């Protein structure tokens, strides 16, 4: 019930209000993020609702792991955002990873501009694995992140790399494709 309320609040205000205002709380110092980042974090969580992971992968890990590669601001924000949220019946664990070796156990891997230097290596590691890679950089989509946020006319949209998706073991709800830009 509580989750429902959170989702309702999120849903109803997602389009117009900063997340801090949506939840009716004052964002703590250091957790603040610019509007677009906040929006992307919110969208990232919505996107996960349209994605299915293999059950075995989830069971093996024992927890639903949301990793943020090398971006503490985004990590903090996601930590706050996923605080009261359940994914696949589990309470997600948000982790800040800095080493490539740590990304293998992730279910969702956020890659911001700060990952630009090692994006190819990261994507090699996640290829053919049930890891939803979500990029936040203009070229990440073409490079192989499954989902990548883009700015379209000053709005936050996202694109899906179809090949990367096909190479993963994930299943994405087809309705998500309706609102995404598809990269073949």
């Amino acid at each position, binding site marked *: 019930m509580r989750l*429902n309320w959170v*989702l*309702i609040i999120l*849903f*109803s205000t*997602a*389009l117009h209000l900063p997340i801090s205002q949506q939840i009716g709380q004052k964002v703590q110092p250091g957790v603040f993020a610019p509007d677009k980042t906040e929006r992307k974090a919110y*969208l990232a969580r*919505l996107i996960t*609702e*349209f994605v299915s992971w293999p059950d075995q992968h989830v069971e093996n890990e024992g927890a639903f792991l949301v990793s943020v590669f090398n971006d503490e601001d985004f990590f903090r924000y996601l930590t706050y955002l996923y605080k009261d949220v359940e994914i696949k019946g589990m309470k997600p664990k948000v982790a800040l990873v800095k080493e490539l070796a740590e990304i293998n156990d992730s279910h969702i891997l956020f890659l911001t501009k700060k990952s630009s230097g090692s994006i190819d290596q990261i994507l090699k590691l996640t290829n053919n694995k049930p890891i939803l890679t979500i990029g936040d950089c203009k070229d990440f989509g073409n490079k192989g992140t499954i989902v990548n946020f883009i700015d379209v006319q000053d709005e936050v949209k996202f694109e899906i790399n179809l090949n990367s998706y096909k190479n993963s073991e994930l299943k994405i*709800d087809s*309705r*998500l494709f*309706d*609102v995404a830009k598809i990269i073949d």
Partner: protein
Amino acid sequence: MLKNLSIKGKLILIILVVTISVLIIGFVAIYVSFSSALKDDLNHNMVNTAKIVADYSITPLQFGDKDRAIDILEKLKNEPQIECVHIESYNGGIFAFYNSECKMPDLVLPNNGKGIFHEGFLHVVQPIVFKNKNLGRIYLRANTKEIDFKTTQIIVNMLVIGLVVVIVAFVFANRLQRLISSPVENLIKTTHQISENGNYSIRVQKKYDDEIGSLYDNFNHMLNQIEYRQQEETKSKKALAESEEKFRNIYQNSIIGIFQADINTAELIEANDKTWKMLHISPTKDSVVGKVLSLRDAARIRKSLLEKGFIENYEIFLEKDEKKYWLSISGKYLNQRNVFEGVIKDITEEKESFLELKRVNFELDNFVYHTSHDLRSPLLSILGLISISKNEKSLESVMHYFDLIEKSVKRLDALVINLLTLSRNSRVDKQKQLVDIKETIQETIEILNLNKPEKLEIKMDIKQHSKFFSDQTRVNIILNNLISNAYKYQNPSQDQPYVSIEVEVTDEAMNLKVEDNGLGISPESQSKVFEMFYRATDQAHGSGLGLYIVKNVIDKLKGSIRFTSAIRKGTAFHVTLPNHVNEVPESEES
């Protein structure tokens, strides 16, 4: 109105009513079913469409992608019946719409994806749910124009089909009704012929073995029965008519009178001709028999009927136009109808015969007495004279006694002759002989002249216009007796005694008048002169049978005799005898 329709009309009407009723019920069922199916289809399609739109609206709503939402809604262009669609977000705001912004109707719409028809539109509300989260709802409004068009089309089609079916049904009904109406009309036609002509030999021709065929059989059987009964009735009527005619003939021609009379009023209710004739009353003038009877007879008859219930051979005496009638009445009293039903018989002849018999018996007694006396009287006289003569010695005296004996013998002979004449008159019947009346009178006079007084003048006047046919012997007896009486009973004091004999013969009769101016007959004797052995005067020497014989002979010849007489002035006898000249063939007349 319908009851008076012909059977043909009724059959056609029934078939048409059934056909139209079935068509209406069928068409209504089809219409309702079709209309319901169309609505269900529309509802189903629109609900599915709303569900699809709702499903596709999840991500645009989640991600706030209005353009994408509009793209989805634009695909509804292929559904022309959709008036408008809008996607409401959870807070009730219109997120996107199709065609125009919809205005929701003022009614509670089920929020379960089921449509509702209202004011010519189908309203569908479909919630947008994703992972048990209510994201908003779709409102879809579709018009029912297509349904209306299709239902109108099917109504038109049904009307056309119905009209065709009714026309076909009428044509078939008009033809097929003959299967029933034709035999019935045939039956009606036959009954009409029978009733018009009264000909029960007509029969209906059976064609089918159905109920009407059975009706035909029964009708023909009934006709057989009627015809048989009619024939029997005709026979009975004929027999009855014959019987009635026979009875009526017997009734009317009966020698006895048959009648019914009211016991109280004595009025004849019904009577045959003989009754009226016997009672000498007329049914048109006076039918009350009581007026004919004497009060005594009427009372006795009524009393007998009321007390005994019948009356037998009650004799009544009537006198009409100086004639006497005797009638005998028998009958019984019909208590229930208060009617006396009886027969009446004319017994006048019997009664007269009876009286005649009584008279004859009396005459016979008288005859025997007188005859024996008259026969014995001369015989005793002769015996006395013979006895005296035996002792008489004088021849002169004996001769005188012989003369007296001769007189007695002649008197006896005359008596015997008269008796023979009487006997012959009753036995002999020969009335059609040619009689020469003149010669007969002359012969009679010649015979009688032996005893004719000297001064007696005989006058004769004979007018013969025709030949006279009668009984010669009887005519002789009449002339002999009448002329001899005229001789015998002369008045001694009469200076010029005469006997006048006048005769006139015509084709019809012979009229004889024998007149004298003799002693005449006293008034007290005039009624008795024709009786047997009656002697009007002691001076007479006759037997008292002369005029009796004359009267009997004239009666036998169906003639008549009358006389006029006055003491000491004379007597005139008038005799009329029928002339049978016209009854004799001309060949015999000569």
